[in-house]
């Protein structure tokens, strides 16, 4: 009984036809290359964002320090009280700059998907 079943199974297998796609291998390779390229691009974008973040932080610090220096000089001949000037610099200069800088920490921007995030 078992032998007969085996023979029937083998006969059935012989009747199954396999169609070999000659382009399949090439397509799989192309897809793999494409995916590798996409990952490399995403990594490069991520690196660029991190570098940009560091530069933006440096610009925020140095720019705010320069503006503070200028404001201290302006305070020398203006009637505005120094605490008011300090609050103005922090509120209207340093803080907006810092907030804009921290935008770069948004996870999707960091991951390099800014084209989808900012469709501006």
């Amino acid at each position, binding site marked *: 009984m078992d032998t007969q079943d085996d023979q029937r199974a083998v006969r059935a297998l012989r009747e199954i036809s396999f169609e070999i796609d000659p382009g399949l291998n090439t397509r799989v390779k192309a897809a793999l290359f494409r995916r590798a390229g996409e990952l490399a691009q995403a990594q490069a974008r991520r690196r660029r964002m991190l570098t*940009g973040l560091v530069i933006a932080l440096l610009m925020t610090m140095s720019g*705010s320090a320069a503006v503070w220096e200028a404001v201290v000089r302006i305070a020398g001949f203006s009637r505005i009280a120094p605490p008011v000037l300090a609050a103005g610099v922090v509120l209207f200069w340093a803080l907006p700059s810092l907030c804009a800088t921290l935008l770069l920490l948004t996870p999707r921007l960091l991951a390099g998907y800014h084209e989808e995030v900012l469709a501006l």
Partner: protein
Amino acid sequence: MNPTTLFLTVPALIGLSIIGLVSLKTDIRRVVPTLAIVFAALPFLAALVWAIASSLSPELGEGAADALKGSGLSVHAMPWFGLALGSFAAAFVLSVGYVYGDAKRRGMSPILWALVAFMVPNLVGFLLYFLLRQPLSQACAGCGRAIPSGLAFCPHCGHQQDKVASPSHAVA
């Protein structure tokens, strides 16, 4: 060179190098709108006139130094002060104009990005723009409308583009 003059040299140099870049590089100048060039020329010319006039006439520099009494600016720093202020203002206007023109040709919102560049302090707006800008757009071979480069098909007319620049948009 005293600290004040040194402090003023930084914006003057930044401003003059940006003005030089826009003046010498035709491909950059072509992007900047004419109106921005006209608006940039005004403070720059004013700064030049001020620098020459205050150098030639000490009374003019003394008058300005009196007006800015307490700021630490000496009479000798006055031409520098004018030049630094004027060239930096001119360079700033040119840069905002560049952002406007460049955003337009990339299919982004030019007014919005020009505002970001103008409003965000410490020039961080410019940095954000250069980090987040889209790739240059190209004209569709079928309908001629501007489409982002790298697309395999035009989103307006569906015409297949000749060259696929970005692998992320390639058809398998």
